[in-house]
C-alpha cells in the first residue's frame, strides 16, 4: 500500500469500516511509514476530541423554518405548477448543518477540517481551497444522505421516521435518496412512515420523474390516509398526468367515499 492510498483509507479505519485484510494492510503501512503514522495520530486525536463535544440538538426555529418553507413551497407549487426550489434550500444551508446526529456531524466536521487543512497546505491559494471546500460540502450532503438511507433500512418504524425527517432536511438530496423515498412510499410496511414520505416528497416539486412516480404510486396505496395525502400532493403540483390515476381511483369500489370525493375535487383542480 502506498501513501496516498493509505491516507485515503484513514477515515475508514477510524470508523472501523474496513474489512480485516485491508485493515491489516493499512496498519502494516502505518507501522512502516512515519509520515502516515503522524497523520493517523493527528486524525485519531481530533476524532477522539470530537467525541467529547456535546451533542447538537436542532433548535425549534429550525423546524419552524422547515415547515414555513414547506408551506410556502406547497402554495407556490399550487400556484405556479413548478418553480426552482433548490435556491431556497441552498439559502437555508447554514442552519441545516446543525441537524446531524452527533457522529454524523463529527464525521462531516472531521472531513471538512482535514480537507480544509489539506487544501490550505496543498493548494496554498484561495481558489484551490475554495474548490476543496465546495467538494467537501457536497460530501456533507452525501454523508447525510448515507445516514438517511441507513435509517430508512432499519426494522424499527420510528428509526425510519427519523430517516425521513433527516432526508427532508438534506440540502442536496441525491438520486439515491430520491429513489429510496419513492420506494418507501410504495412499499414501507408502516403507514406512519409512508405518510411522512409524502411530506418529504413535496421538496421534489420540480422533478418530473418524481411526479410521474407519484401518479403511478397512487394506485398501489391501500391506506386511505396515504391516498388522501398523495392526492393533495399531486394537486399541489398541478400534475396533469395524475388525472387518469385519480379517475381510476374514483372508479375503484374498494376506495372509501371520502377519498373518492377528494380525488374528484382534485381532478377538477388539475385540469
Amino acid at each position, binding site marked *: 500500500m502506498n501513501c496516498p492510498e493509505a491516507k485515503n483509507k484513514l477515515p475508514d479505519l477510524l470508523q472501523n469500516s474496513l474489512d480485516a485484510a485491508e485493515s491489516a494492510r493499512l496498519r502494516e503501512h502505518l507501522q512502516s511509514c512515519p509520515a502516515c503514522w503522524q497523520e493517523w495520530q493527528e486524525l485519531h486525536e481530533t476524532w477522539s476530541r470530537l467525541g467529547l463535544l456535546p451533542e447538537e440538538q436542532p433548535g425549534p426555529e429550525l423546524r419552524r423554518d422547515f*415547515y414555513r418553507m414547506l408551506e410556502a413551497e406547497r402554495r407556490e407549487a399550487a400556484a405556479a405548477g413548478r418553480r426552482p426550489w433548490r435556491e431556497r434550500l441552498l439559502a437555508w444551508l447554514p442552519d441545516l448543518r446543525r441537524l446531524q446526529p452527533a457522529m454524523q456531524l463529527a464525521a462531516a466536521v472531521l472531513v471538512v477540517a482535514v480537507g480544509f487543512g489539506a487544501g490550505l497546505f496543498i493548494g496554498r491559494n484561495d481558489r484551490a481551497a475554495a474548490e476543496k471546500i465546495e467538494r467537501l460540502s457536497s460530501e456533507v450532503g452525501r454523508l447525510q444522505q448515507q445516514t438517511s438511507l441507513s435509517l430508512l433500512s432499519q426494522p424499527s418504524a*420510528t428509526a425510519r*421516521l427519523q430517516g425521513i*425527517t433527516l432526508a427532508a432536511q438534506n440540502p442536496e438530496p441525491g438520486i439515491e435518496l430520491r429513489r429510496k423515498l419513492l420506494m418507501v412510499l410504495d412499499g414501507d410496511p*408502516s*403507514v406512519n412512515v409512508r*405518510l411522512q414520505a409524502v411530506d418529504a416528497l413535496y421538496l421534489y416539486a420540480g422533478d418530473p420523474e418524481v411526479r410521474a412516480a407519484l401518479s403511478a404510486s397512487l394506485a398501489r396505496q391501500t391506506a386511505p390516509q396515504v391516498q388522501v395525502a398523495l392526492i393533495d400532493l399531486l394537486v399541489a403540483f398541478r400534475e396533469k398526468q395524475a388525472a387518469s390515476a385519480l379517475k381510476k381511483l374514483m372508479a375503484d369500489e374498494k376506495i372509501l367515499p*371520502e377519498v373518492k370525493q377528494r380525488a374528484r375535487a382534485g381532478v*377538477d383542480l388539475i385540469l
Partner: protein
Amino acid sequence: MNIYKKIALVVVFLFLALPALRGEEAAERVAVPFSDPGKAGRLEVSLINGAITVIGYEGKEVIVESKAQAQVVTPAAPEKPSSKYPGMKRLAAAGGGLRVDEAGNVMKITSPPWKGDTSLAIRVPLNTSLELHTVNGGDIRVENVSGEIDASHVNGDIVIARGSGAVAAHTVNGKVVASFSRLDGKKPLSLVTFNGDVDLTLPAAAKANLKMSINNEGEIYSDFELAVQTENVRSVEDERYRHGRYRLNIEKTVVAALNGGGQEITLNTFNGDILLRKAK
C-alpha cells in the same frame, strides 16, 4: 449482526384445539425467553382476528396468554357438512392456532387467518420493542413498555400508556389514544387515524415539535399554550362559473413548538378531532 448468526432457535406451537368446553373460555399460557435476555428484545405480533394487549413487567420472559373461543374445531363439536362441496366433510387441520418463533432476540407470533378470535394478552420485559398488527376483533393496548412501539390496526382503537414515546401507531377506523409521563425525546412519535380522534397526553414539561393535521369537520383542542407557526391552509374551489359549486376547503395543519421544541410529534386524522392533554 453476530446475534443473528448465532441463531438460537426456539419454536413453540400453541395449539388452540382444546377439549370442548363450549361457551367457556379456555386460556392457553406459554412463556418464551429471548435468546439473549441481557439485551432488549423485539416482539412482532401479527393477527387478523383478535385484540392484542401487551404489558411490560419486571421479568425476562415473554408470557403469552390466548383465549381460544368457540370457533375452534374439536371432536366434540362436529363440523357441519361442507356446503361448498356437498357430501364432503372438512378435516380440521392441525396447527389452527398460534405460532411463536424466536431467533436472534426477535420473537414472532403469528396466527393463520382463522375464523376464531385469537386475542392475546402478552407480558414482556420492560425494554422490549414491539411491532403489533391486527385487523379485527378488539383493540391494541400497550402499557408500560419503554421500547419502540410500531402498532397498526384497521378496525379498532390503539391505546398506549406509559412508555418512552417512540411510537408509530396507525388505525383506519378507531381512536388512537396515547399518554406518556415522560418523553425520551430521541425517536419520533407519530399517531395517525382516518376515522377517529387522536388523543395524546403529555407531561407538562414535555419538549416537542408538533405537527397536527385534521381534515373535514375536525378540530384541535389543547391544554397547552402552543406557539403556533402555521395554521389553516385554505383552498377555495369556485366552480360556480361552470355550474359547479363553491367550496372552501380548510385543511388545518398546525405546526407548533412545545416548551421550546424537541421530540418530533406527528398527529393526523381525517374524520376526527385532535386532543392534546396535559398530564395531571
